[in-house]
């Protein structure tokens, strides 16, 4: 069953067209990867789905569970079951990890929060009372961001570059978290240009220059990415070139 559709979605930022009549459908309960080179529009697509400030003036439609959500604000989309993990999570002066996770949590259950952190190899006793600020490493903030997604229990989760800034051991915990979300029936959209992350998906899309240029089985997309995208000499500079597909 479809959970989310983008229909002819276009977005212009700073006079550059970043998304170009994007048509993409996500299926409930699946782990989808949206892959593509840097500058293709992947993170922009995620921000547009979430309705972040600056990303709402779109053409086209975003249909979530059969309803057009174009006019819904970020928090309204969140309360309808969509949430997002940032590539570079925010830092907060004075706000503790505990308070952040409680605020993010659907059930406000401290035990669930403890178990979620432990599942990400983070000792709750060491982290809960720490401030979510620059004293935490990028990898720690990333895992806390992921913990906040898990306790949020959303129906659709956008993970923007979940592996950036993460060490190898932590990456395995991230993958465990993706598996957990999938087991729950959560729809996961992985924004990634990493083959290791793409490998975790059930289904994949390839985005280039603001458009979907291929979709399907992850192995097919991985092969296309390796054979064509990596050696491709172009850069994703919006409006300045036409994509070279199939060459």
């Amino acid at each position: 069953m479809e959970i989310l559709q983008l229909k002819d979605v276009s977005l212009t930022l700073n006079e550059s067209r970043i998304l170009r009549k994007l048509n993409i459908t996500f299926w409930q309960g699946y782990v989808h990867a949206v892959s593509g080179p840097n500058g293709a529009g992947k993170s922009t697509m995620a921000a547009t789905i979430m309705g972040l400030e600056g990303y709402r003036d779109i053409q086209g439609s975003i249909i979530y569970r059969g309803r057009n959500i174009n006019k819904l604000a970020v928090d309204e989309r969140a309360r309808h079951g969509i949430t997002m993990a940032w590539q570079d999570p925010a830092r907060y002066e004075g706000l503790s990890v505990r308070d952040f996770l409680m605020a993010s949590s659907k059930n406000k259950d401290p035990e669930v929060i403890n178990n979620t952190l432990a599942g990400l190899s983070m000792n709750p006793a060491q982290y809960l009372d720490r401030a979510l600020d620059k004293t935490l490493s990028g990898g720690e903030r990333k895992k806390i961001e992921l913990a906040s997604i898990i306790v949020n229990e959303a129906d659709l989760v956008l993970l923007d570059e979940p592996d950036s800034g993460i060490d190898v051991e932590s990456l395995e915990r991230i993958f465990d978290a993706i598996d957990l979300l999938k087991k729950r029936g959560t729809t996961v959209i992985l924004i990634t240009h990493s083959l290791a992350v793409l490998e975790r998906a059930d289904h994949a899309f390839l985005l280039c220059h603001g458009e979907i240029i291929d979709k399907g089985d992850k192995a097919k997309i991985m092969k296309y990415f390796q054979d064509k995208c990596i050696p491709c000499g172009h850069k994703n500079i919006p409006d300045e070139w036409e994509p070279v597909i199939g060459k």
Partner: protein
Amino acid sequence: MENKSALIDELLEASRIHKAVHSDPGVAYLVVHHNEVIGLRGLPGILVEPRQTKDGVGIRFTVKAGVQIEKPVYLCFGMMSDRGKQHIDMDVHIEEKARVNLYAHCTFPNSSNILHTMDAAVHIGPHAHYSYYERHIHGENGGIEVVPKAKVTVEEGAYFKTEFELLKGRVGSIDIDYDCLCKANSILEMIARISGRGADIVKIRESGHLAGDHSRGVLTTKIALRDSASAEVYNTLTASAPYARGHVDCKEIVQDGARAKAVPVIEVNHPKAHITHEAALGSVDSKQLQTLMSRGLSEEQGVELIIQGLLR
């Protein structure tokens, strides 16, 4: 006697320290209502010498050399009436190697026209430790002008920390002026956390002079303003000795028609001294807010959580 006892309880309750004071006979305290000392419990090693003045009290507060007071000492100043003046003269001596944490709760819960002023001279002896936590409780309409001034000397190896926080009610008008001289190997921490609304006016002048080798100082101000409140923060930190280290940090969140100004002044007069500063004024950080909103919090809830964190 009964009336006085009831007044003590009322003031302590309003100050939120009733339980702390009454449940533990090992806790020292002083309660001043307007210009009258109405409650006092001392401890060995602490000398509290109050004297009544026309509009308040003068207090000489001494902790004898080597005395380590583990539990908080509470000073409760306040007025339950809605108008009047209260002036406090504090003469504080923390002698060599003494240690005390002083909690000054200044309570004016019904304020509509009150002036509360304080002049403090503080001397912290060598290797002594003195923390002063000033907590204010005001009426919901403000109606109060608070003017605390302090001159502090921190001797060699000593530690001084002061924190100012408004626990309840509106600021009204507050004009803080603290000046601190730090000698060799001493440590200074000055922290102010204030939330202003309505037509509240906040002025903070905090100065630290790192005059001794290896002295260290941090001045931190965190303010959240909304409606038509205003704040001016002048933090000055000077370092004129080798290996003196300092940092000035001012963060202000401004909403509605509120106005904020921060002027950090950093002065380094020795090539081996080092001071840093940061100031961030403006609206709530968009990424912080949108992250919280993407978890389902409303904008108001997100802003409130961010401000709570800032003021912590």
